[in-house]
């Protein structure tokens, strides 16, 4: 039973991260469409922010898998 609960926890964490990274992606695309000349800066900042969100999600996933 703990296995299934852990899987649900991991899934919930992924939903949160998915919404967050989706927002980053959409806003970055908008920003690039408005100002195509700073595409390099926007891209590296986008990856940085996505990595930070991903970090929080990964901690949740690891905890839900290893801490039963």
């Amino acid at each position: 039973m703990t296995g299934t609960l852990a899987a649900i926890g991991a899934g919930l964490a992924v939903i949160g991260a998915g919404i967050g990274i989706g927002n980053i992606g959409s806003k970055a695309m908008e920003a690039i469409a408005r100002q195509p000349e700073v595409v390099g800066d926007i891209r590296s900042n986008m990856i940085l922010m996505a990595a930070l969100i991903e970090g929080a999600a990964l901690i949740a996933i690891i905890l839900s898998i290893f801490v039963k």
Partner: protein
Amino acid sequence: MSNFVAILKKRNKRIIRMKKFMVPFICLFVIMANISSAEGASKQTEESEHATAHHDECSCHHEEKYDPGASAFHHIGDANAFHLFGDYYLPLPCLLYAPESGIKFIMSSAFHMHHHGSGSKAIDGYVMVHGSIMRVNQDGFPMEGEVEVSCYTEKEAADGKVTYQVVYDEKCYNLDKKTSYDGGIMGGGITSFYDFSMTKNVFTMILAFLILFFLFRKAAVSYITRKGQAPKGVQAVIEPLFEFIRNEVAIPFLGSKYEKYLPYLMSIFFFILGLNLVGQLPFFPGSGNVTGNLSVTLVLAVIAALITNFSGNKHYWQHVFNMPGVPLPIKFILTPVELLGLFIKPMTLMLRLFANITAGHIVIIIFVSLIFIFGQAGESLGGSILGGVMAVPLTLFMMAIELLVAFVQAFVFCILTASYIGAAIEEHHEHH
């Protein structure tokens, strides 16, 4: 100018010629990947000998059950021998230490490994189980010299913890867990022996180090021999990557002092990238899951944390302990949060790299496992073919994604480390 155009045309032709070779090469690659993983997995299902654990008597019997999860975890784990193909293993040196019996140095081939990395010999109480060295910790087993053992079995306790057992002379003996270098902090438990062997991961790290050394040496030499000319060969591969990290990571985040930290950032980027790429090869020189090993990423993250905190200036520490322009009651909340942040930052670095690489490897192995899941572990030929038809494009797709992840994760580790160091060495600016 016309000369330049001619070179470009020549290069384009060469790329087209390369493309012709690329498609069959990729197909061959995927097929080989499937065969090599399939071989290991089928060995596990067909010949896996599990013993029924009675109280006194133990016997080995064949069990026809395929567990994709266990197979995946076995493939991504570290091992004391390097699996080549079939029953052939590359022997690696083992340095073992137990307080009661002292230091023991042997090659892993001395354990006579056969199917799935389990040895048929026990040496001074050490046995090789699924590619890892374990030690018998129950009385009655001959702890001196070589003995022949029958097989290995798993015993599940009431709380779900699995203990490995060795079957010798039709009796079961409990085995200690394989050692971890953390002293049992991360749940491995304290073991009766310590394993300082050169494992598969260490071998892969040395290999990646040698590859990087020769590549960079070649690039460095060509800066002297081809002075004033356009970069070519290895140099043309290394230079854009180097310039990218310098111009997009080091200079924007570290400002004028970037040169001091550039060697570290470059080392960390190319080391992680090299290991990620070597780890993607599914057969012999690759297949070591080094950056997907928590101990390796832990060390990388600790180095990053040490460099960040030792290069932190007055303002960095002021922002941690005594934030300027914040009312006193808020400081009681903010200081613990900032202190926690000092540890959470390297921890996320560690977990991000580990989880991304490990997840990628597990997904690829699970896709390959489709062959055995649909084929009911070799019983149904039609199912295996269906599984294979599904597994090949899925594995190819995941491998392509993993190639991207290999670059992105190396870049992310590098850019985050640079941003942490950048925040620590930032010059003071006005807050009012």
